[in-house]
């Protein structure tokens, strides 16, 4: 304390040199500022690279033993040391896609309603409720899934789907309730708040002049929303959906509780499945052999790669649709 105050006093004493020093210090400050920002950016890159390197290093035994077969083998047997990741990759992707299929129409509908149609007094409470949903811990969703969603799916939804659409391989097999469908539905509920609140912000950011112009040209309300608002905010909306997808791919607890945890590739949504995040959470604590641990770490590496891959694909999709809209470039 006393040391620092005396240092300040010493620096303050000679005025003209202090001004010079301050000028030089400003340059130094700028350079320090730039360097620290650059450092911060690089740390992010190094962290990501370090993460991949650590995962590869820790899983080298499994990579060496199984090679590419790890990706397409579907046998997972810790007793004999046979490990294949296909059922987990399949389960992660299918449950996430299912979740998006349910959540995207719902979320975009809610976001459009809140941003364009809802009377002013309705907006804040509904927006607040939706954001509240995002704050519910996933284990709570999981418990709700086991005790409410699963019995409901088993007793009502699955028998109905089986009766009407049972000719499709998607809806065959005994209705346990627990399974891929339950996982997809619970993931959908979990990502709706994310997609909705981000989409709502995107739509609210669309300038009013866009709407006025469309309305002025004689467009109906629906046409205005479609042409002037949704098209304008397209890349933001895709970003919102990607955010939801990212959460769906990595979600662990709630999915584990309802998916049935069976490493099998089945076309039927009624059948139990397994995801990459779930198998790591389930088996890592009791994995004793080195190969077993390495196989689980390799699953983690795959999860990272799948997440990056899916996000990359989605970005490409956005660019191919026409890149950032003209409004954004201006």
């Amino acid at each position, binding site marked *: 304390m006393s040391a620092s105050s005396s240092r300040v006093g010493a620096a303050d004493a000679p005025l003209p040199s202090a001004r010079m020093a301050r000028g030089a210090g400003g340059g130094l400050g700028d350079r320090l500022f730039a360097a620290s920002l650059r450092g911060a950016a690089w740390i992010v890159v190094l962290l990501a690279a370090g993460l991949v390197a650590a995962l590869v290093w820790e899983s080298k035994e499994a990579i060496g033993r199984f090679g590419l077969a790890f990706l397409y083998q579907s046998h997972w047997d*810790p007793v004999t040391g046979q490990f294949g990741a296909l059922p987990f990759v399949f389960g992660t992707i299918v449950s996430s896609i299912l979740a998006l299929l349910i959540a995207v129409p719902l979320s975009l509908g809610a976001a459009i309603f809140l941003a364009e149609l809802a009377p002013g007094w309705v907006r804040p409470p509904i927006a607040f409720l939706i954001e509240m949903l995002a704050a519910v811990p996933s284990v709570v969703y999981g418990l709700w899934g086991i005790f409410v969603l699963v019995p409901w799916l088993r007793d009502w939804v699955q028998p109905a789907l089986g009766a009407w659409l049972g000719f499709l391989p998607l809806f065959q097999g005994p209705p346990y309730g*627990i399974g891929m469908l339950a996982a997809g539905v619970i993931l959908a509920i979990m990502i709706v708040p994310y997609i909705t609140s981000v989409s709502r912000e995107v739509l609210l950011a669309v300038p009013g002049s866009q709407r006025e112009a469309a309305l002025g040209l004689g467009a109906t309300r629906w046409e205005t929303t479609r042409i002037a608002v949704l098209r304008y905010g397209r890349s933001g909306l895709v970003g919102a959906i990607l955010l939801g997808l990212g959460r769906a791919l990595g979600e662990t607890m709630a999915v584990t509780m309802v998916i049935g945890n069976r490493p099998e590739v089945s076309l039927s949504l009624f059948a*139990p499945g397994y995801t990459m995040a779930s198998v790591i959470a389930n088996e890592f604590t*009791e*994995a004793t052999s080195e190969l077993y641990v390495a196989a689980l770490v390799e699953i983690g590496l795959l999860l990272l790669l799948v997440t990056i891959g899916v996000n990359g694909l989605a970005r490409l999709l956005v660019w191919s649709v026409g890149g950032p809209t003209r409004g954004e470039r201006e």
Partner: protein
Amino acid sequence: MKRWHGLAWMLILTLGWLPAPAGAQMLVNGAGATFPYPLYSKWFDEYVKVDPEVRFNYQSIGSGGGIRQISERTVDFGATDGPMTDDLLKKAPAEILHIPTVLGAVVATYNLSGSPKLAFSGDVLADIFLGKITKWNDDRIKALNPSATLPNQPIVVVHRSDGSGTTFIWVDYFSKVSPEWAQKVGRGTSVSWPVGLGGKGNEGVAGQVKQVPGALGYVELAYAITNKLPAASIRNQAGKLVAPTIESTTAAAAGVATSMPDDFRVSLTNPPGADAYPIASFTWLLVYKDQPNEAKGRALVKFLWWAIHDGQKHPAALLYAPLPAPVVKQIEAKIKQITFSGKPLLASK
């Protein structure tokens, strides 16, 4: 200046909440199995009254983690529900001892309308979990339960999805009573299940069994008792139907006392003895035979001695089965073998 005062006060208040760092006190660290965690934390709590100089810190990270950490010497003792394999023992930097502390049992629980009291034999259970018996009204189940009304309903098998000592005990039993299980599936904390749904933890299995009509799963005895789940009787090696209780679990250990291997790495499943419940197991603490630190080693040995004697009055209240007297005698001899650089740590008692 005022702000500094505020910060200083905050610091003092925060530090005040932390446990007092008494100079003479020793911290003994351990990690491992989750199954005995409630008992161990009770023990460490009680043991403070016996020896206030020692504090135990136990992380219930799972048996696999316990084995890894003791093998890397990052903890003073480990804990596991399944014994270390020869391979793992060989890889450890020095000789590791298994000290049994208490017993647990695994029970078959089910969801049938009317909750009839059911009985199974080992081979019937194994065939259900192999997917060979698929209906509740199968003749072999009927033969074991002549008085129960069994519906023509599919059996939905529920197993643990997380790696667990409970699973190890369950499949270890199957491996002994069913050659087909031993050959096709084998034993481990996670196995490749031929049929069924996976639930995470005892609560996950119990939740799914409760939710799915016709389900059959397995949970720890303590969990089944506290949650009043139906628990099937099992036909033991002597041919008697035995209900899972604390007494019948202790009887399982008494059954193998005469044939106890020197390192206690013994499976108690399917034991001899008329009253023995056949799906039971020890849980072990893992300690180095030659302790690296004299003071800590002495504290640890004193604690182990206490745990297998005075400590044994605590398990029953927490629904674990205490060690039978002949086994305690055998463990005494083992604890006396623990040394620090060749010298026994326990003064002759």
